[in-house]
């Protein structure tokens, strides 16, 4: 959408006012991904493997989900920080403009500093791809891309749900982190290393398994026959946006009936 690019350029100009600060902050955010990577590295260093998965295989899980999360954050930061937008009255201003609110919210917070995370995740991804023993045929590449795109949709949906909840209460919101940050942390590792109910939960309630586990199995060749399904399963995660959107609209209606 053309308008989004206008938002993009105004944020860019805003950030360029403070070049050094931008640079340093980006490094800072990149560090979070780096330390997660380091933690995983040390654990494998000590334990060697986990439930039959090697370090390189697990790196694929790690890098795809971190990439998805980083990109989703870049776009969806407005929803992620929605509690601030509501409490300082910015949402009223958004409602008074003749444009779709979602577009405006997405445009209102474009944090370039998050690019640190993105670059870091990308580096890990490249390393994971190159050091893995997977033969990267077309179908595997497509799967990988789907994993990332599916992940972006999923996390964006989760951010939207968080924002929708902000309409009802501004307290106790941190439990949503269980799903966003928690989901990300959990899915760094292949989901079957945990108890059974974890996979079930992340298949049927918050479909992270479809972006990170099933396609991953397909890539490393451990899928038990359901080849095509596993490969295309991220598409199911993209459908997660539907309930998120519905919840969002409910939230907006509630706001219009109770004010701030």
């Amino acid at each position, binding site marked *: 959408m053309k308008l989004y690019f206008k938002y993009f350029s105004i944020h860019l100009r805003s950030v360029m006012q*403070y070049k*050094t*600060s931008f*640079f*340093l*902050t*980006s*490094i*800072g*955010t990149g*560090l*979070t991904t780096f*330390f*997660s990577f*380091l*933690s995983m590295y*040390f*654990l494998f*260093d*000590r*334990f*060697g*493997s*986990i*439930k*039959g998965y090697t370090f390189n295989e697990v790196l694929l899980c790690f890098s795809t989900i971190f990439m998805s999360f980083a990109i989703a954050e870049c776009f969806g930061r407005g929803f992620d920080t929605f509690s601030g937008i509501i409490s300082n009255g910015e949402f009223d201003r958004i409602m008074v403009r003749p444009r779709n609110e979602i577009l405006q919210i997405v445009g209102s917070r474009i944090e370039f*500093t998050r690019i640190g995370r993105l670059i870091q995740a990308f580096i890990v991804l490249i390393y994971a791809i190159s050091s893995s023993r997977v033969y990267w045929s077309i179908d595997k590449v497509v799967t990988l891309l789907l994993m990332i795109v599916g992940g972006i949709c999923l996390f964006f949906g989760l951010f939207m749900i968080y924002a929708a909840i902000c309409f009802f*209460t501004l*307290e*106790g*919101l*941190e*439990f949503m*982190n*269980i799903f966003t940050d*928690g989901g990300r*942390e*959990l899915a760094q*590792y292949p989901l079957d*290393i*945990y*108890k059974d109910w*974890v996979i079930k939960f992340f298949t049927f309630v918050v479909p992270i398994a479809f972006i990170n586990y099933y396609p991953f199995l397909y890539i490393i060749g451990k899928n038990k026959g359901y080849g095509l399904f596993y490969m295309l399963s991220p598409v199911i995660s993209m459908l997660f946006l539907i309930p998120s959107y519905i919840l969002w609209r409910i939230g907006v209606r509630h706001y219009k009936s109770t004010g701030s």
Partner: protein
Amino acid sequence: MKAYISFFRIRFINGLQYRTAAYAGIATQFAWGFMFIMLYQAFYKSNPGIVPMPFDQLSSYIWLQQAFLALYMTWFVNNDIFNLITNGNVSYELCRPLDIYNMWFTKSCAYRLSRAALRCFPILIAAFVLPEPYKLGMPYSWIFAILFIVSMALALIVVVAYCMLVYIFTFYTISPVGARITLVMIADFLSGGLIPLPLLPDWLTKYIDFSPFAAMQNVPFRIYSGNIPADKAALAVLLQVAWAVILVAIGKILMSRALKNVVVQGG
């Protein structure tokens, strides 16, 4: 002194107001606790060889970590103090008849304690009743239990002193957010916030054990389940005291220097 107490009281009550936040926090902590335990269990099963910490002790460590997260997490930095510095309103704080360092120190402690107070008991109680080996075990012995409590208090001082240094650092830097994230992340990792320190490679923990980071949560939690033998434990606690004193001293010196050249931004 009375001023600090009422300061503390206000902050504490303020922290208690947020009951839904507390419930949410408790749920979150539980979820994370379970998650970590499951993860480490999977690792332990894959390679049940020589581990520096038996699984049941690790479980205790994790639960203590989650229950007292509000006390020791390094990436919780009082935003209002932070904003005071970046937008220049710190000059108002200077008008009060109290020492700024002590004021902010008390504020941080009160905030952490009130948040921890709300959340720790449900988590501790629930963790006690979990089945072995996932549960929070009993302390190793009476002596260790007492040492544990002392160590916890010291750990809080060290953490807050470190955070004070982070605040002070923002006086000197043009990029407060970047500096803050970096310093806080390093501390988080090195204090055992991402992985419990005993699980890090030995060549690394050798050095970390002498740094202030080990004093921030690792020492008390290990003391609790007796992961450190008694003599080493006593030394570790003494090291905590030393770091507490050093960090506070550095903080106070740097603070008074920084205040002398307060550059007021904004307006």
